[in-house]
């Protein structure tokens, strides 16, 4: 899969700011609703105008560069940049990400880096978006 081509694409004009995407993201990956664990993040720039922040699955993978345990790699099937179970939660990748698309969360008592992995195929946020503001 070509890196950076397949990613969650956004159309900011269509977004209604309901954050269903944020909500379903953590349910799918962690089995809980966790407002901190959002692979996609919606914020309101001004009344009724929303910004969507989501991993661009960049080709140079800046986030992987300084990972001390080599936990970050590209999934050969989906093309997504993914974080493996080896993650020790040091937070280096989140610091390095140029667009702040990696969040640091606490899961089962341990710190972890968390980002969009395209749900291994069809992203849940794309499925749930009522406005088709998200595509992939």
């Amino acid at each position, binding site marked *: 899969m070509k890196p950076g081509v397949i990613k969650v694409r956004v159309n900011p004009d269509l977004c*209604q700011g309901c954050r269903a995407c944020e909500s379903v993201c953590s349910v799918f990956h962690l089995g809980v609703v966790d407002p*901190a664990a959002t692979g996609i993040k919606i914020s309101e720039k001004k009344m009724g105008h929303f910004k969507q922040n989501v991993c661009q699955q960049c080709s140079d993978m800046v986030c992987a560069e300084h990972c001390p345990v080599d936990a970050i790699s590209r999934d050969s099937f989906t093309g997504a940049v993914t974080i493996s179970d080896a993650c020790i939660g040091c937070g280096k990748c989140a610091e390095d990400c140029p667009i702040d698309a990696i969040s640091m969360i606490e899961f089962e008592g341990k710190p972890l880096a968390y980002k969009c992995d395209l749900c291994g195929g069809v992203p849940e946020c794309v499925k749930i978006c009522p406005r088709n503001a998200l595509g992939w």
Partner: protein
Amino acid sequence: MLKSALEMRWDGDEMKGYKNCVLRIDLSSKNISKEKLNMEYVKRYLGGEGYGVALLWDEVPHDTEPLSEKNILSFNTGPLTGTPMASASRISINFLSPLSNTIGSSNMGSHFGAEVKFAGYDSIIFEGKADKPVIVVIENDKVEIKDAAHLWGKNTRETTEILNEELGKEYKISCIGQGGENLSSIACIFSDDCFAGRGGAGAVMGSKNLKAVAVKGNGKIEINDKDKFLEINAVAIREIRDEVYTWGPVHGYGTPAWLDGANECGLLPTRNFRQNQFEKLEPIMPTQLWNNREKFEVRRRACYSCQLGCHKYIVMKNSDYGDDIGVGELEFETIAALGPRCGVNSYEDISMANYYLTIYGLDTISGGATISAAMEWYEEGIITSDDLDGLELNFGNGKAMVELLRKMGLREGCGDLFADGSQVAAEKIGKRALDYTMTVKGMEIPATDPRGSSAMTVSLGTSERGACHMRPYAATIDAFGYLYPDLGVTEPKDPFDDKESKEWLKSVKEFFVVTNLIGICDFNVINCELHATTLAAIYTALTGIETDKEELLRKAERTIALERALNYERGFRRDDDRLPKRFMTEEASGGPPKGRKVDMESALDKYYEACSYDKEKAIPTKEKFKSLGMEDVYNGLLANK
């Protein structure tokens, strides 16, 4: 592992979805405490509105004056609130209502309810009264009561802006405007342009000197079976998207999409219910708002996790009133109350009126309805422009409407007379004023003419909180011809036959109440979209408590029974379930119901029979209470008599 309600240990810790924590704040003593959910309440009433009403029943003396410090104000989320379920944003606010004197139950969307869950609470209870204006700031476990001297006197938008600047933009804020501060009985609670509108929740908040509640949280909501949850959530979403009208006009334009349908069916109150059809509707159809981009900018701003997204934010760019005015949201009810009901058909006037109602924090339905009553009093010569600071309040005078609403919000000049709704104003004015007051239990009737729908005759009359558009909005079924097979409505109902059995209405009403208990929005069920079976399944997947459609409806039935019992204690009987005389004596002026009057007694009898109510006391019979497992409530009633 699923467990039935009986097997569950019911200490609540096994139960997912709920946070099993209630925050109790005594504003008098500044004492802040946390407690576990009352499992008895959860078993009987599920949560949300039911939880709030149970608190009122158990903790507040039944004859309490609504604006006294003995009243409590509780914010109750449902188990689904905060999850990715469609429109799982609702938080129910319960209190004794200063407007109707009944139970007060008002709920709102926005992102506030979800944030309360993330902060770790199912409910927040406010007791007592602060000695000076305060705000309550909640960040997860940390709860503080802070001074609000600098916020008192600020309007809702200013308050939100100041707090977001002081505390941070992540905080979700509920607050009151000058309406609530001045104890106006029609004041509402504002949260990010959503309102807990009806029944005077804002006045109760104001009476406690509580200006605002700010919440931020990053806690988790646990889910019992995530795969099942996502699977059924997809079914629920499909049910909503498959409904053509919902996913077409309502998703597009929001609730104003109902305007022309309601008008065609002769349901649109016009000039204080003198007519039931508005002849000049075209200029205020939502298309006019969207197509007029030089003047109006419309942006979608949905509540948490909402598929429908009816909520819009409108900026009026240039008008006689000024440039770039953020008028907020124009709902069907708002447009109908400020438009046809007052004979006004200009979007500029309606928008500006809505702007004042929004910033001062007044209910748009009661606000518009009070103006329309005042207009009729003016036209009938009961009040004159001397009583109105010189305003000429004829039907259709939009500018006068806007000015009077501004004065009402601030209780300025003649606005003081009208600030507590039309019933209080009529009582003060005396003479024939009460004949033109379109209220039930003191609350103004919303935008549905009961002459066009027999089901709405019952809904508006028997609503436990006063005339209400959502208990249930049943005109969809009898007037518009929708079916709801999942609730047993398999054939069309006659909107003009008050003698028809109202058995079906009972289930529909219960299902509407279920949405308030569980934490989702009524608009998922208003066009018969979401199935009760689906909702029961998603509740089970979330919490791990086995349930079915019948049990969900029974929980709502219990909640309604408890509300009726509390109203009974406060002196409400069959007579209070009657609509104003106009509907029984004056014929509908046009549309399908032309020439029709309401047969109130038959409609009430049929409904009471369906619900097994005592026909005079208007509460469930002893046997009914017993079958609901609520004998203690019935015995409590007698003990107090």
